[in-house]
């Protein structure tokens, strides 16, 4: 049974591999993107040396690694699920002897691994050559970071699945999907690190799962969070991963009684 899930990862990976040429142009555009961000932050820092607890060097690393990590954890599971619900093909998935949600998760993971190997790694190398990015020297930090990256993927996918499943309850959730995307980009700290947020918002963020997607792992990578504190934030990720399973299962249970296919 488990091998079926592994195969799903493999199939999605190969599917993405077929389109790899486009990814080379993607890497260049991503590098430009990170470059523009770098100069933007340089101008924001101006004369100041520390801002929101970041030095400019840390900020550069933060921006580079956050955008590259986004390439790994980002997926369109929400859209895929919503469109499968809308066109009714989810009904077929119900009959099959596997867990639909796990299948989606695995497909997302296959896509993530593809982007990690063919996008994130070469992209990060190029960015390191072009901009003053400081990579962590301790092997322990690297290991911890990669573990946290997996949890970023899991938590982001859980949020995606949850929003996607809402298509069971509303006929058109396009607007919702877009709003979710804005919220995740903003609150996860890709656009601005959470320590820059005004006090009340930063405090609110501590109680939401979004920080676990980018802000926490990237902070570990830049070395701002180290030692016991780093293990604690890993714990935060694990807790959110476990907590988010509950609403997904609840919605999923409810949803199966509500399936209603529009047109067909």
């Amino acid at each position, binding site marked *: 049974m488990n091998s079926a899930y592994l195969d799903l990862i493999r199939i999605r990976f190969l599917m993405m591999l*077929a*389109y790899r*040429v*486009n*990814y080379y*142009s*993607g890497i260049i*555009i*991503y590098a*430009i*993107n990170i*470059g*523009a961000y770098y*100069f*933007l932050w*340089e*101008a*924001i*820092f*101006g004369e*100041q040396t520390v*801002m*929101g607890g970041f030095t400019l060097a840390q900020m550069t690393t933060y921006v580079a690694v956050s955008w590259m990590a986004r390439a790994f954890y980002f997926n369109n599971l929400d859209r895929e699920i919503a469109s499968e619900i809308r066109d009714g093909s989810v009904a077929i998935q119900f009959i099959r002897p596997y867990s639909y949600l796990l299948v989606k998760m695995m497909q997302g993971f296959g896509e993530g691994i593809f982007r990690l190997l063919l996008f994130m790694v070469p992209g990060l190398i190029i960015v390191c050559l072009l901009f003053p990015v400081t990579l962590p020297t301790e092997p322990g930090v690297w290991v911890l970071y990669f573990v946290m990256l997996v949890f970023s993927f899991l938590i982001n996918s859980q949020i995606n699945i949850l929003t996607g499943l809402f298509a069971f309850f509303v006929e*058109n959730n*396009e*607007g*919702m999907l*877009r*709003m979710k*995307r*804005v919220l995740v*980009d*903003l609150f996860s700290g890709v*656009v*601005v690190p959470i320590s*820059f*947020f*005004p006090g009340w918002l930063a405090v609110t963020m501590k109680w939401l799962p979004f920080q676990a997607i980018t802000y926490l792992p990237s902070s570990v990578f830049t070395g701002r969070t180290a030692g016991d504190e780093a293990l604690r934030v890993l714990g935060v990720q694990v807790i959110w991963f476990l907590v988010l399973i509950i609403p997904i299962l609840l919605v999923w249970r409810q949803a199966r009684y509500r399936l209603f296919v529009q047109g067909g």
Partner: protein
Amino acid sequence: MMFYWSLCVEYMKNYAKTRLTYRADFWIEVLSDILFQGLNLIFILIVFQHTPSLGGWSEAEVVFVYGFFMIPYGVFGTFFNLWSFSERYIVKGEMDRILTRPAYNLYQIVLENIDPPSIFGSIFGAVIMIISWSQLGLPFEALDALMLVVFTVGAVMIYAGLYTALTAISFYSDAPTGILPLMWNIQNYGRYPINIYNKTIRFLLTWLLPFAFVGVIPASYFLDRHEEGLTTLALFTPVVGIVVLVIGITIWNHGVKRYRGAGS
């Protein structure tokens, strides 16, 4: 000419009829559109909590550029909604239907995908621009209104040309490109002061992917920022627009000839 005008009217009527069935969706789309754009405004507002100026530009000036940026973008978004062109017209082969009809193919496709909710982005932008206009205490003359129209038209042509060219890639490569969303990110750098970037990115944003001409350059005309000849450069916005649009349409027309239809 009359023929093309009547086509436009008919498509608009058609759009209104389909939309009136899902009225709530219309407003949800407007809201999520503005939220999507608002992400950059939030970025600006958060950043200026930590610094008084960005490369010598004050908060009100940067917000002004942001407001201006949204006006042409909203107009462009209304008429150009080809983000899923490859899936809909190439993969599903709908391009066949378009090509058998007696009107110019790109014109038909544009009208089929018209997206009026985007125009609210322009209105939102105009409001922001007016607010910062009065905050900055800039004089308003009749010429300014005329230039605003000229710049908007020029900027819309730049967008149209660039994205037409990028969409036309689907004719040359059969795989989904994923370049468009990345380009969308780069375009956002056109709204920050161009002097903060290094030479390469400045050159890129001015001449290769002239996104500076849809934001900071024309806006600097109103702000009277003379440094580095920005205000003079602003006058070239319509010229750049025409050149980019001609290039875009040429690439498109060349691409259409390569279209072979999808077998299914």
